[in-house]
């Protein structure tokens, strides 16, 4: 039986993520945990995250989970969601903090100057709602999901990888931005699969079956 741990560092709606995984993988053991030993023993690790990047980084460290998350990202199927994607990178404009620096790149805010729709109206920030994800390459986590499918987003910052080969999905909101990345055992998304209806559930089901 596969054991998946949703890392609990006090940020965000972790139960939604756990419930969605339970829904697609009823045979799996799904735990929401802040225990480093339990995270280390998991077969798969999910790092969600909501709210401000500086708070997330502070809480992760305060709970002594930084190391175990970095280790999980190096060795087992790892899914990052929202801030769980952003924290894989380096400098974040929000609060001027550093992420885990697992991948080279930065986390800027949507630039005001570019926040204009084709019809001239102002684009709101946060980017909130259902937007399309263009799949850059085939990946086991995209299996059964149409290219251009819509997922639910809510964020004001986005990742800018320095190595374009990690980009797995891209979305347009004023500017094109990276909405999914993949490298070896890591897959991470800016949107919320746990809130993205059938396509989101499919992505989570794919993650639970994934053997990178």
């Amino acid at each position, binding site marked *: 039986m596969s054991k998946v741990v949703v890392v609990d560092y006090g940020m*965000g*709606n972790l*139960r*939604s993520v756990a*419930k*969605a995984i*339970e*829904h697609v993988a009823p045979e799996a053991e799904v735990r929401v945990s802040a225990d480093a030993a339990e995270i280390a023993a998991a077969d798969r690790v999910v790092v969600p995250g*909501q*709210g*401000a990047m500086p708070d997330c980084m502070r809480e992760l460290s305060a709970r002594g989970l930084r190391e175990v998350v970095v280790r999980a990202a190096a060795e087992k199927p790892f899914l990052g969601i929202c801030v769980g994607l952003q924290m894989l990178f380096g400098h974040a404009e929000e609060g001027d903090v550093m992420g885990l620096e697992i991948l080279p790149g930065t986390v800027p805010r949507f630039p005001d100057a570019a926040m204009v*729709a084709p019809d001239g*109206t*102002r*684009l*709101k*920030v*946060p*980017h*909130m*709602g*259902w*937007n*399309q994800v263009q799949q850059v390459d085939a990946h086991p986590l995209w299996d059964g999901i149409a290219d251009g499918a*819509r997922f*639910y*987003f*809510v*964020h004001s910052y986005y990742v800018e990888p320095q190595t374009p080969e990690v980009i797995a999905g891209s979305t*347009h*909101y004023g500017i094109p931005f990276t909405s999914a990345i993949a490298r070896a055992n890591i897959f991470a998304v800016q949107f919320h699969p*746990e*809130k*993205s*209806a059938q396509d*989101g*559930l499919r992505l989570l089901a794919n993650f639970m079956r994934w053997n990178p």
Partner: protein
Amino acid sequence: MLAKRIIPCLDVNAGRVVKGINFVQLRDAGDPVEIARRYDEQGADEITFLDITASSDDRDIILHIVEAVASQVFIPLTVGGGVRQVEDVRRLLNAGADKVGMNTAAVNNPQLVADASAKVGSQCIVVAIDAKETAPGRWEVFTHGGRKNTGLDAVEWARKVESLGAGEILLTSMDRDGTKAGFNIPLTRAVAEAVGIPVIASGGVGTLQHLADGVTEGKADAVLAASIFHYGEFTVRQAKEFMRSRGIEVRL
């Protein structure tokens, strides 16, 4: 491109979905979990629950409903009604809500908006504004279900809650609510153009054209409706197909 959202709204009283007729009689419209599932299947982009339970004894029922819905429906859930303190926000989020709406409490204590958004993030905080036209081109904020005039200018108040940390505004025209005469377009547009956060138009939807008008004329980012969906007049899918036929980007 980002899709415009269609959000069915469920008024919940002591565990049942109800709909007022002429603001008084409450008609039973069914089981909240069952109705939420049906809207999800029809392609609703989010679901909003408004808890109108009067008795404080029954206030926790909404938490159980949110829990039940959140384990079966995997789209964003917003819950409002009776939120008075940060602790209420936290309890609803823990039960499975993604966003929490506040109205009267935000007017009485604007600091609540700031405290709640600092604690759980702006993206979780929706400020509901009930506005009524008091002079041509002027809308004032009403609280207590539309009974009490605060004297606040609705557009100014929207800007203020944005600066306090609200992540979204749910704007209801009290003049239009329940009339099926369509959104109050000038009000919607004035607020939507005044703030940089998303605005949900509410109050008055009677036809699918009204929904489209809220987006194209009112410049709303999302449209909310209750009765046209509850009684099977239209499905959410029909609403989306109609909006698409009017050139509006939707998730179908």
